[in-house]
Every structure is written in C-alpha cells, then in structure tokens.
C-alpha cells in the first residue's frame, strides 16, 4: 500500500470503510532482473584539454542515462568537460594470457627508438 493512499478513492471515515476500493499500487514483482541494466565504460576528458581517459564503469538502462550517471559518478569534483560512454561489450580487448607474443616482442628492439641512432653532424634542432 502506498503511503499516500489512493487519490482515486479518498480516505473514508471509520464508519464507512470502503473495502472494495482498489489498492493504490500492487505488490512489487518478486523477481527483479538486475542484469537488465547494461554495463558501460566511462571516458572523461579533463579540463586541461587532454584526451579522454578511462575513468571506470557503471550500470545504466540506455546511453542517455549512462551519460547522466557518469556525470554524477565521475565528475562530482569538477574533473571533466566531456564524457564518453561506451557499452562495455562493444569494446574488443586484447587477451591478457597472450602477453608474451602480444607485448613482449618489441623488447630488445632498441632500433625502434630514436635514441638508438647517432646524431648526424650539422643537423640542428634535434
């Protein structure tokens, strides 16, 4: 029963209790599907004019609400001037188990760094 009573059936006096009045709001459904709200990843661009940086994630029913939730969760302390939200399942991520083949092959290849090479004579502004 709603704490407001039912506006369609005003409160009755004690002598004339309206037992047939419909209940204001039905009992809530027992099953609550929490997976209904999808997961979103949040990217915030700070006011310093850098790129958007991943700030965290949140749940929201749709993109518009995800942006608003992101504003409430991640820019409370004036952290940003722009927010992106992306459905978490739209992000393709590298496999953490394939670290070796994926990320360790550049190791030892110092010729890929500019510092590997000796500066040519007479070249300015290097």
């Amino acid at each position, binding site marked *: 029963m*709603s*704490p*407001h*009573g039912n*506006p*369609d059936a005003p409160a009755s006096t004690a002598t004339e209790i309206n037992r047939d009045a419909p209940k*204001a*709001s*039905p009992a809530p*459904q027992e099953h609550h599907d929490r997976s209904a*709200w999808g997961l979103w990843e949040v990217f915030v661009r*700070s*006011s*310093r004019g*850098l790129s958007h940086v991943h700030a965290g994630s*949140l*749940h*929201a*029913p749709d993109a*518009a*609400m995800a942006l*608003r*939730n992101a*504003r*409430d*969760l991640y820019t*409370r*302390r*004036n*952290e940003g001037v722009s927010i992106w939200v992306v459905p978490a399942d739209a992000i393709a991520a590298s496999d953490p188990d394939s670290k070796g083949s994926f990320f360790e092959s550049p190791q030892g290849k110092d010729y890929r760094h500019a510092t590997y090479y000796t500066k040519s004579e007479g070249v300015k502004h290097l």
Partner: protein
Amino acid sequence: MSTAHTNPETTGHGDISTGVAGGDSNASATRITPGNALRPEDIALEVRTGLVKPSEDIAEYALRLGDDALILAQRLGHWISRAPELEEDIALGNIALDQLGHARSFLTYAGAAMTNDDGSARSEDDLAYFRREHEFRSVQLFEQPNGDFAATIARQFVVSIYQYLLYRRLTESTDETLAAIAAKAVKEVDYHRDHSAQWVLRLAGGTEESRKRMIHGLRTMWPYVGELFRDDDLTQRLAEAGAGVAPSSLREDFDRLSGEILAEAELEVPDVPAAPGGGRYGKHSEHLGYILAEMQVLAREHPGASW
C-alpha cells in the same frame, strides 16, 4: 596530470577547483566565477562582518525558499542506500546535497535578520534544528512521502521545474545576495529537471507496471502543485520591489514545460482536487513532524555538538 606543469600552486590539484580559495576576506556574494561558486560560508562571512543584512520581508522570503530546499533534501536523503540501483542512489543523493546547499545559503541569509532568544545571531543550524513544526515555511509538496521511486520522481518533476523557473527569475532580483544564490542554484536545478524528465519518460514508456506507478505518483503529488503558485502579501510586496518573484507569474511557464514532457510521455495532466495548503504559514500535512523529529533529534539531544 601533465608532467611539464610544475607550478607549486596547482601541483596535486591541477585545475580542479576545491572552492577553498573563496573563503578569504575578499569573498563576496556577488562574485561568481566558474570554479569558485558562492558558498554558504561566504554568505555567513558577509553576515558576520555586517556587509549584508536582509530586510524583514526578504528574510521571510529566504526562509520560505530555504525551508523548501531543506525539507526536500531531507526527504531525498532517505533514498541513500535504498534506490533501485547504485547509480540512481548516487544521483538522488547528489540532488539532495544540491538542495541542502541551497537551503544553507537561504537560511544563513534569512538568519541575518533574526536573533535567538538570548540575543545571539541566528545561524543556519539554529533555523534548521531548533524551530518547531509550525515555524517552518515550506509548502506541503516538499514534505510529501517518498513513496515508491515513481512517486519521488513525480515530486522531483514538479519541484525541479518550479525551482528552475523561480531561480531563473530570481537571478534578476534587486537583492544581490538572493540573485547570487539563485545564479548558483539555477544551474543545479536545471540538471534536476533533466533527471526527473528522463525518468518520467522512461517510467511512462517502460512496462505496464512502471507506467501505472508513474501515473499514480503524479496523481499523488499533483494536489500540492497549486500551493506553489499562490501569491500573498509578502510575495506581492517583494515582486513590486523587484526583489522577489510573484509565484503566480511562474504558472504559465510551469504548465508549458511540464505539459511538454507529459505529452511526450503520453501522460495526462492529473485531474485531481487541490490540497488546501498553508505551508507558508506553518500549516503542514501530518508528514512534516516525522521528518523534523528525525532531522532534529541529534542536534537537540546534544546541543552544540560537533564531530
């Protein structure tokens, strides 16, 4: 954080404003900068140093607006840890804190024209914690129970449009402090307006159950809408002086803005009889006493306690 930037004044905080810089003796209620908005402490400082002192009319007006915001903040605070989702919990908590901020500013200013029984100046805390039910000036809509989520959204829907229209006009007040409080508040309630409108649309367009609850929520809150727009001698005097806003002059815009959202949600403006009202004169529904009991008990049990 950019490593090239090592100015000691900004190291650690970057461009994030902490608001602390505004607490100096140069603070002014009328100085509004993007990262350094007016705080209740700034108003308290101006009151203490005698820079501002509202007339009796303005103080009563500020008391009304402050009580509206205070009671709403207390109501919304009850949702914390109880909202349907964690994200919504924080959203409602944010809105409650915004309202509490407005209440602090208005009550601090109102207190500047009042003294306690022992002759001391009345602070925001004196007004919030040591007044009795019939001394509160909030209209009855603000004290209405949270009900279910849809009922709270319905109350927010009405309140946020009303406060948005009111504060927008109040930024042009001839009273500089009221104008400054409104200038800060209007940006915040504009967001509250968006928040409630988003939810009205979603609940109305969601499931059969959510739509039924949204309709019910609107019907339970709508009897208290009329009281928001009722003029009296005080608002008339202040409106003529340019310091306040005649509540009735906001009604047309309210009907238009609320009507647009309701139409988009394919909802009708509820056709329910108006409640008698009287909150502005201390006549409250049965709910306010319980709110005050919970809100005031700690301060009354331990007067002057701090933690």
